[in-house]
């Protein structure tokens, strides 16, 4: 089954971290992604640019409107994600617990819902 691991980072999570430690963390994260990929347990992983770069949009009555910034103003923001392949929720938790960012961030693990096209009138 596929699970999405959402990495939520506190705005101040990196306060006081040295440039060197920061680079190490990045290297470690890339290493872990590769390890997962090699084991056939990673579909996709990405880090996101700072939340200040976000745009939120909606379409209502055919009209597009946009606002600057994230959907919700919170202390913790989505900083990245991993789409992993695991046997079950506990394996997904186990894989997510080894994500280096788990030491700084909160990871939300959500099973993917499989959608199928069906007849809307059925």
């Amino acid at each position, binding site marked *: 089954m596929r699970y999405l691991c959402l990495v939520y980072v506190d705005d101040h999570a990196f306060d006081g971290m040295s440039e060197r430690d920061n680079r190490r963390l990045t290297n470690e994260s890339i290493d872990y992604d590769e390890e997962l990929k090699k084991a056939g347990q990673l579909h996709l992983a990405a880090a996101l640019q700072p939340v200040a770069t976000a745009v939120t949009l909606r379409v209502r009555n055919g009209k597009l409107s946009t606002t600057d910034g994230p959907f919700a103003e919170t202390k913790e923001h989505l900083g990245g994600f991993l789409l992993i392949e695991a046997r*079950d*929720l*506990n394996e997904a938790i186990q894989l997510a617990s080894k994500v280096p960012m788990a030491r700084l961030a909160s990871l939300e693990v959500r*099973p993917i819902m499989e959608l199928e096209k069906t007849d809307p009138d059925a």
Partner: protein
Amino acid sequence: MDERRNLEQVEAVYRTDSRRVLATLIRLLGDFELAEEALHEAFAAAAAQWPRDGVPKNPRAWLVSTGRFKAIDRLRRRSRRDASMAELARQLEAQSEPMTEPSDDGIADDRLQLIFICCHPALPPDAQMALTLREVCGLTTEEIARAFLVPAPTVAQRIVRAKAKIREARIPYRVPDLAELPDRLEGVLHVVYLMFNEGYLASSGASLTRHDLTGEAIRLGRLLVELLADPEAVGLLALMLLNDSRRAARASPQGEMVLLADQDRSLWDCEKIAQGAALVEKALASRSFGHYTLQAAIAAVHALAPKADSTDWAQIAGLYDLLMQAAPSPVVELNRAVAVAMRDGAEAGLAIIDAILARGDLQDYHLAHSARADLLRRLGRTAEARTAYSRALNLAQQEPERRFLTRRLDRLYSR
């Protein structure tokens, strides 16, 4: 062509042997997570190599040793960040031949060891069941959650906490010594029996049985009998088979509950009854049997009666007397009362139930009130029977049981 066949074989070996390989890896590596990762890597390696090089002569041994090497490798890689991993990797590598079986008193199956770890008394019972179903039976977290009608994150958390507890409390990865075996085995049998009952008498919810749980419990029961020649393990397996033999007759096609006396006995599973009855005899012959065997013996008397009114109630009442000595409890006493009522008349049974309730026991147990209601009905004390059925209905939680009690009540009013 060969390649595809070999790949299919990897899948077949996964289905039949992955839990045994996991159990062995847990013993060798002394850690659930490391073992699960190693299992995954071993099968990934098999999927890559077997189609090309052919399936090894002993696939299980190949998977165990591959998994072990992969785990050591993984610890080495992690040791670049965490020095303690290097020491662990060295220790694991220094261990002797990995395939040698442990020789503790001739008990030499890794799955058995795994059952004892999963059912360790330091873990709460719901965690014991979840862990056993996942690690020994190979169910997924989501399947366990569906079977117990609880959200998957709840089950996941139980498993995470149980594993943390095993690690922190340093619960040893081994089968208990012969001296402590009886106590610990009692705990294991209890977990298996709870699992069976959870499936058989689903305590709440819409469905009367949950076959996956009963099926897994019986599978574990067989495994315990195969691995440990213990009369009570035999008795428990017999009890589960005999109860399960009535599965098709316990509910009508509409999902309504059917009492033992009213069941269509041609729907009973003769194969399971024969197996169960033979196991009961074997357990009774050991002369060191306990309450599971006695309950199985009672179930066997029921199962072997061709018609409800040819049931040997005298023998059943006698077995309940023995059960009251082996494992006295108000519920056993209640069941004994029903058997006594069948042997000596409703009045005799009613007197026992009234005594139990007067003592303050089972007052909130719906089956005590429905049994009492049934005896009152038979004695023609209709008003009292109605009150008792209503009380039972108020306490019952399972939908089919509630509908059954409602029908009984309706019938009393329509008289």
